[in-house]
């Protein structure tokens, strides 16, 4: 399966926010832990709403979480 041309910094942001677990983040944005794992691994591109929710949890802009890689 082709990797998405979107990079993300969720793993680093989780680490910087008290080593937040994937489960914690998943619960806060209303998805499963497996979905967070898939987003982090670049296997699944989240919806715009989920992307904004992730950025909101970390208190940063969406461009600080996701960037276009192509």
């Amino acid at each position, binding site marked *: *399966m082709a990797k998405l041309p979107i990079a993300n910094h969720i793993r680093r942001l989780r680490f910087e926010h008290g080593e937040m677990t994937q489960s914690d983040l998943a619960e806060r944005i*209303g*998805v*499963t*832990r*497996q*979905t967070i*794992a*898939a987003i982090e*691994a670049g*296997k*699944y591109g*989240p*919806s715009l709403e*989920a992307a904004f929710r992730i950025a909101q949890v970390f208190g940063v802009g969406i461009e600080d979480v996701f960037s276009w890689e192509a």
Partner: protein
Amino acid sequence: MSFRERTAWITLITIVICFGAYYGALLAGLVRPATWQAFHLGLLCIIGLVVLQVGLNVLAALLNPKDAHTPRDERERLIHARSHVIGYYVLMIGVAATLILTHVVFKGDDFGQVIVRTVNIGTFAMVASALSVAITQIVLFRRGY
């Protein structure tokens, strides 16, 4: 493994066991089609499938009640939709195959045998469709999407 992936595995395994037993017995010649023996075996397989699926899904829900009561998230909804599109195509091919094979009369076939064969092929089309849904879901869950 997520609760939804677990239910997909339950569907796959129970269908393979129950309908594998039915079609395996028919193909191996252990029961002759269009007999009461075949009808009872088919009925037993369907009842077994329902009992196994309900029982295992209840067990899966009891082991992980939080996930079981959580609605599908966006990725799970996409996987659900994509798998059912594939299942729909498999079913359509099965329906077409059933229609064609119904009109193929083998030498010595009587009307009853044609009906039973049609029912068996039609049921197999539904089974193949359900299997393709479960397999697609498992692949997508394993792959990430």
